[in-house]
């Protein structure tokens, strides 16, 4: 947190309500350049909504979102495109376009922004595939022909293809076996280090969080209730973090019981 005065992304008192449901009740968050922030929290606490607000897929009910010092939460879809071109996103299910082949998927953003020509697009895609440890031979396959783990890697390749300044990861290890989950963790670390990008990850997988985070923030009940480094997570006496870390059913977090 050296460069605290000039964060890359900043959320100021962001609230988001759906009808009478108050999902976000005032989020304050800063992400510095080159920093990897992990937001942890249980299901339904508003993690995905937070990411969608940053991406402009949802408009916050109130509050400000700043990118590099400029407000981006009120931009029209057309002006958003410039901001979004600096942001990469790895969706939970990969969200690869299933009507396009893998290489068309990966170079989609670069082609849309006319960063590359049609002829060099495939070359770019193969470079990105190699970065995420996929065989260049899969370039011509379609997403449905790949396994879940490979789809996630291809999704990661697509997210990094435009050299984004910040990459958002939506539950990158969910639904993967422990080994593949670790492979993805390592990929996230190496990819962000190589590109020098910032990263915001939302997850409820504590192993993954501790591994990839420079800083961890805990989301509960629509607010950030705790922030600290990975070491702090293990040492803190905050009951929420402790409960989440240890995965106890008993404690201040009672959503698991509420449902019954």
């Amino acid at each position, binding site marked *: 947190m050296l460069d605290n005065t000039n964060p890359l992304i900043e959320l100021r008192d962001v609230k988001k309500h759906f009808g009478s449901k108050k999902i976000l009740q005032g989020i304050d968050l800063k992400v510095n350049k080159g920093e990897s922030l992990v937001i942890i929290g249980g299901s339904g606490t508003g993690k995905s909504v937070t990411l969608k607000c940053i*991406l402009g897929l949802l408009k916050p009910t109130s509050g400000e979102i700043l990118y590099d010092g400029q407000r981006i939460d009120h931009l029209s879809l057309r002006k958003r*495109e410039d901001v*979004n*071109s600096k942001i990469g996103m790895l*969706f939970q*299910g990969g*969200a*690869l*376009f299933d009507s396009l082949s893998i290489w068309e998927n990966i170079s989609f953003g670069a082609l*849309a922004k006319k960063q590359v020509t049609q002829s060099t697009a495939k070359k770019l895609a193969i470079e990105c595939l190699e970065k995420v440890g996929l065989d260049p031979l899969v370039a011509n396959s379609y997403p449905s022909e790949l396994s879940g783990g490979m789809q996630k890697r291809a999704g990661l390749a697509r997210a990094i293809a435009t050299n984004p300044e910040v990459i958002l990861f939506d539950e990158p290890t969910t639904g993967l076996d422990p080994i593949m989950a670790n492979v993805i963790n390592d990929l996230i670390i190496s990819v962000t280090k190589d590109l020098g990008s910032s990263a915001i990850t939302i997850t409820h997988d504590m192993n993954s969080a501790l591994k990839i985070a420079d800083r961890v923030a805990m989301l509960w009940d629509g607010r950030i209730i705790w922030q600290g480094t990975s070491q702090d997570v293990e040492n803190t006496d905050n009951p929420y973090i402790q409960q989440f870390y240890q995965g106890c059913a008993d404690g201040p977090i009672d959503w698991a019981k509420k449902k019954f």
Partner: protein
Amino acid sequence: MSAMSKQRKNIFYVFLVVVATIGKVVISFLESMGKFAVFLTNLLLSIVIPPYYPRQIVSQFMEIGYFSLPVVALTTVFAGMVLALQIRSGMGSMSSESLVAPIVSIGILRELSPVLAGLMVAGRVGASMAAELGTMKVTEQVDALVTLSTNPMKYLIRPRVIAGTIALPLLIIIGDIIGVLGGYLVSIYRLHMNIGLYLQATLSNLVMLDLSIGIVKGLCFGFIITVLSCYHGLSSSGGAKGVGKATTNAVVASSISILFCNYIVTGFMV
């Protein structure tokens, strides 16, 4: 006394439930109309702004136009055939070449070919469009487009609407020809009418309005079907069930809307 007041209370309660239910339906109807109006406005505002994605337009044109040819041809040929039989049977001894031929061509060109082609495309294309876009929506592919600096309105919706609006009039013209041909075949080979008289009666009674009414209907139907199907597809939520619901809504809404629009266009043009 107390029994009566209790009964009255019950009636009042039932009345409240009825009013609440009607109110809920009205509110959700108005809500969806509002959402649709926003969708349509966004689409129309973006209609002239590049990029245009010509490859998307061509592939959608093939999907909507070319691959619908067999169904449209089959439905219109049978419609023409059955029309000739019915007029013969209904008119009895009055029916001759000069009566059957014009009725078949007016019926096919003005009504049957546009409506049948519209309904077939609504069922075939509307359903697949809503299902495809709905699946893209629930698997976050639409969100992924936005993060890759591509406007879903321009990349997904506009090519489909343009392709549909161009394809349907062409399908209807082809349906016209095939439907009239169906009537001709039945009249000549089953009802043993005179070829020369039949052809002459068909051609001499044709006016430009017969053709143009079908083209105008085609333009309207193509637009309505694609816009409604895209709207329902994109507004689906909640996994497989939501996609199924969106598909049903798309087909029902486009079928009813084109029949309604059919009456309006006919009322204006004749």
